[in-house]
């Protein structure tokens, strides 16, 4: 058990507190000063996110004085270790990119922009709470805050019927997922007598039927967050119903926080020696990889294609989960590193592709294959962004998604699940086919329809470009990124 530090409370809770406080400030200002421009709230949200990131870095500097050992406080409920710092920085970065790139959603959000930015901060806070928690109650609190915030963001576009419907369905799905997670944790609590996730590692040595059910339900609940099949429908609903800017934030924040939750709960908490959940995870991972890839073969709408791609990424994260323990050669299998690197890269790809969809909406272009025909001539910049985003989702080289897939397959093989690695590779091959068709529609097929170029959204376009280009930069800088991820992963073992 890492040593207790007197400053641990501040260090661990600082990022979450900053986010919540800033969210409250934005909400208050939005209520009291409705005439403030949307840009004001956006920049305030950015300050909050940057502040939270700074808080995480302060925590990191504190950890160097403790030789990297975690700081535990609140009677073991929360911990600040390198993994938490990595997760917090990642979530803040995703939130920041999402906020800055959500300009195209402004016409739909209208006066509800303050609420949107506040909800981004609360969703990020939910994710950071998940990152620092070591206890079931804190986990449920963080997950609940995250799910409610994500649903709220979608519901803000309620004036559009599709968005309202998506929000209702998402609320129902999130409620079911939360309930499954809560029941699963309750069963584990009943079996072990403790809500401390780390303590369950030693207590659940032999998972009998009921304990196995609890573990399975916990895993299923977490699958919802990462958007893995069979709980991936919320992704498709959100991406179909919401505007591109809102969908980008909701999907990327949700799946990134889901990845963090997977690691915190299933690696820090439950041991990989518990075969029932590992076998279930293997089967789920294989299905979660192959199902969306097969379905995508017949898809002609780019929104649906992106949604299935994000779901496939969730399957890849589950695949990497299989390699989070000790491999066959008694070394770490590298699954946590693969999850951390993968979730970073996948978030960038999701942001890039959905923000490109937002730009398409702003320019009045449809997202079906008919609407995308000849886009490279009508709107070359948007076409390039969409191309890079889709290529990142598909894992086409030289984008970092390809490296992430190699690492995921490696970790699965190291964990003794080579067949799941083969399934993930097969899914990669299958998903590439509809993406190639989409690229052909963008760059090859002719269409002379004129494009209306709106005056604004330069910031959104710039952010989308950064996200798209980052997919290539991450390939070059994969070494340092993996080094950082490894540092985070080692703090868990």
């Amino acid at each position: 058990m890492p040593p207790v530090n007197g400053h641990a409370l501040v260090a661990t809770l600082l990022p979450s507190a900053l986010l919540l406080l800033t969210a409250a400030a934005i909400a208050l200002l939005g209520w009291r000063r409705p005439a403030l421009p949307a840009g004001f709230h956006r920049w305030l949200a950015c300050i909050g996110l940057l502040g939270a990131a700074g808080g995480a870095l302060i925590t990191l500097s504190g950890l160097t004085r403790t030789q990297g050992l975690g700081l535990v406080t609140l009677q073991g409920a929360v911990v600040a270790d390198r993994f938490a710092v990595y997760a917090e920085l990642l979530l803040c970065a995703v939130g920041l990119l999402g906020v800055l790139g959500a300009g195209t959603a402004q016409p739909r959000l209208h006066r509800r922009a303050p609420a949107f930015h506040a909800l981004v901060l609360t969703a990020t806070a939910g994710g950071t709470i998940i990152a620092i928690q070591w206890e079931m109650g804190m986990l449920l609190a963080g997950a609940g805050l995250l799910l409610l915030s994500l649903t709220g963001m979608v519901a803000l576009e309620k004036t559009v019927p599709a968005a309202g419907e998506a929000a209702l369905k998402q609320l129902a799905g999130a409620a079911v997922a939360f309930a499954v997670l809560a029941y699963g944790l309750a069963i584990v609590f009943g079996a072990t007598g403790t809500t401390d996730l780390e303590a369950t590692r030693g207590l659940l040595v032999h998972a009998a039927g009921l304990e196995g059910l609890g573990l399975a339900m916990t895993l299923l609940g977490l699958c919802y967050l990462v958007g893995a099949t069979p709980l991936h429908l919320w992704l498709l609903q959100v991406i179909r119903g919401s505007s591109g800017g809102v969908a980008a934030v909701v999907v990327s924040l949700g799946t990134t926080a889901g990845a963090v939750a997977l690691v915190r709960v299933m690696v820090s908490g439950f041991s990989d020696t518990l075969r029932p959940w590992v076998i279930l995870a293997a089967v789920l991972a294989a299905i979660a990889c192959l199902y969306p890839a097969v379905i995508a073969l017949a898809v002609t709408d780019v929104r649906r294609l992106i949604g299935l791609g994000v779901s496939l990424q969730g399957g890849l994260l589950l695949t990497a989960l299989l390699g989070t323990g000790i491999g066959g050669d008694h070394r770490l299998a590298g699954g946590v590193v693969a999850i951390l690197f993968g979730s970073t890269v996948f978030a960038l790809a999701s942001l890039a592709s959905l923000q490109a969809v937002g730009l398409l909406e702003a320019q009045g272009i449809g997202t079906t294959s008919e609407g995308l025909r000849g886009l490279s001539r009508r709107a070359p910049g948007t076409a390039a962004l969409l191309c890079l985003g889709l290529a990142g989702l598909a894992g086409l080289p030289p984008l970092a998604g390809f490296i992430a897939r190699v690492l995921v397959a490696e970790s699965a093989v190291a964990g003794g699940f080579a067949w799941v690695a083969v399934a993930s590779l097969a899914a990669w091959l299958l998903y590439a086919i509809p993406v190639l068709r989409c690229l052909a529609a963008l760059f090859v097929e002719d269409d002379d329809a004129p494009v209306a170029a709106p005056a604004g959204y330069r910031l959104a376009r710039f952010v989308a470009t950064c996200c798209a280009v980052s997919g290539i930069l991450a390939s070059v800088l994969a070494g340092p990124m993996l080094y950082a991820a490894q540092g985070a992963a080692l703090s868990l073992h």
Partner: protein
Amino acid sequence: MILSAQFLSSLAMTAIQAPQFILAAASTTASATASATASATASASASASASASATATPSLPAVVPASPTPTAVPSSTAATATAVNFPTILFSLLIWGAVLFAVVIVLLPDRTREQRTRIKALGVAGASAALFFALWAVETQASNAAIGLGGRPGGELMEQRRWLASFPISASYHLDADGLALGLILLTTVVFFCVAIAVWRNDRHVKLLSIALLTLETAFLGVLCSYDWVLFLIFWSLPIAPVYLLIRAFGGGGERSSRVAMRYAVTALVSTGLLAVAALLIGFEDGTRSFDMGLAPLTLPATVSHVVFWLCTGAFLIAMAVVPLHIPLLDLEEDSSGALSAVFAALLPTLGAYGLLHVSVGFFPAISQSYSLLFAVLAVISVAWAGIAAVRTDDLRRLVGHIGTVQMGAVLLAVAGHTTLAITGAIFLLVSRGLTVSVLMLVSSLIQERTRRVRISQIAGLAWQTPRLAAFWLGAALSAAGTPLLSGFVAYLLLFTGAFPAHRWFTVLVLVGVLVTPVVLLWAAQRMFLGASRETFSKVRDVGPFELTYLVVLLAVIVLLGVLPEHFADLFNNGASSILFPGTSG
């Protein structure tokens, strides 16, 4: 954080020192050759005796030279008089030079004629840059080859830097090239240079075409230079999207183009998948916990060795488009426009052949030799099938495609022969084949474009209107036939001489099958160019100065290889011996 700083600083150091390296390269190379001679005498004599014994006796020698442990840190092995070792980046410049031009093209508009001309000029410039670096690398290594240094991996041009080190199976940025790769690098850069000129007059999808061609060139060169599995897979799968888009954009149009492009994409994806599984197996089973490809031969458990061997061989045979896997490539060549069909026909199967020789034979010499009979049978089937199909076809481009398949069958025979001489001949043949098929495809496309006919039976008497076209066709046909003083002669001579001792009857059968090549090509020439001229073709233009630019370049290289084969013989021979006797790097 420290590692990221080290990584970035090493890149910065390399960038700063690169100009100084370029200026010092000429003197460095000469002094490196002189100073390395003394230290390399033992290994040179060992390799010379090994290759001599392999030439005289086709079977593997009893003693394989010990394999030195490859270094995992960047090293420049040039012991120079200046006593300053600059890290070499020649291969990096070669690979990434073209794509840098592609990145610039992405940012340029292409609405007006001038803008499109600018883009085309950048495309040619990118191809020229790659050709420049390729000639530099090849000449450097060719001059070192005479003393047994050039053409082997681990030489002075090798680049190796840490990349994905923080993972169970580490990957590095490892670039190197042996004689086989260098020969194909020369072929690739020459073909892309000529194609970049050949597409100058195209005005459709200019940006897409330029970017795709430069990306393809980067991908092909990357495959040839990669010595790490992750890097290899990245470059191996990189051409899928550009080729798909090029077929859709420049194909015959409609459903057929879509089908052809998708079929190519599926076969390429399957090939990539097989290689990915093989790479994972190698990474986990060979005990080095590294994806490095410079560790041949591999020491894997017996069953795993065979599985990996067949995964790799299957992937590369798909890419080589040998019978019965040749139909997608033939459709690709037939459906694409002229210059693109030259790239696809000349280079796509060549990459497969490179993989087969470099990986399947180089990493698993014993296993590949144990299956030599199978390769010989495949060779005969390929040659026979494609030869008969070539005789029966009436489509001009399909004819050239079948000829290419026949020559790939001959390469399979070299694999079956498993001698240094045969592999050297295969390297010559791959280069010769690439150049010959390029010329034939370009000429075919020009004929089809100008006569608006695709069938040989519909064309006659063209020699009166297009004597230069006829001359180029005949030149390429004679090279494909193995006429002396042209590149095909040296290739076939070495290949059949090297393969004969191991598989006599199969060699004879393949030789007979290959003889179909000149028969078919000359018969097609007779039908198309000779005979009474037709009124329909009275206005057909011959090739002008523009077309001569790239056709002459290709033919000149064919003649150069035929007249001066000794300039490359040592290089290719060292490459062949490093494939058959891995671990003898200098």
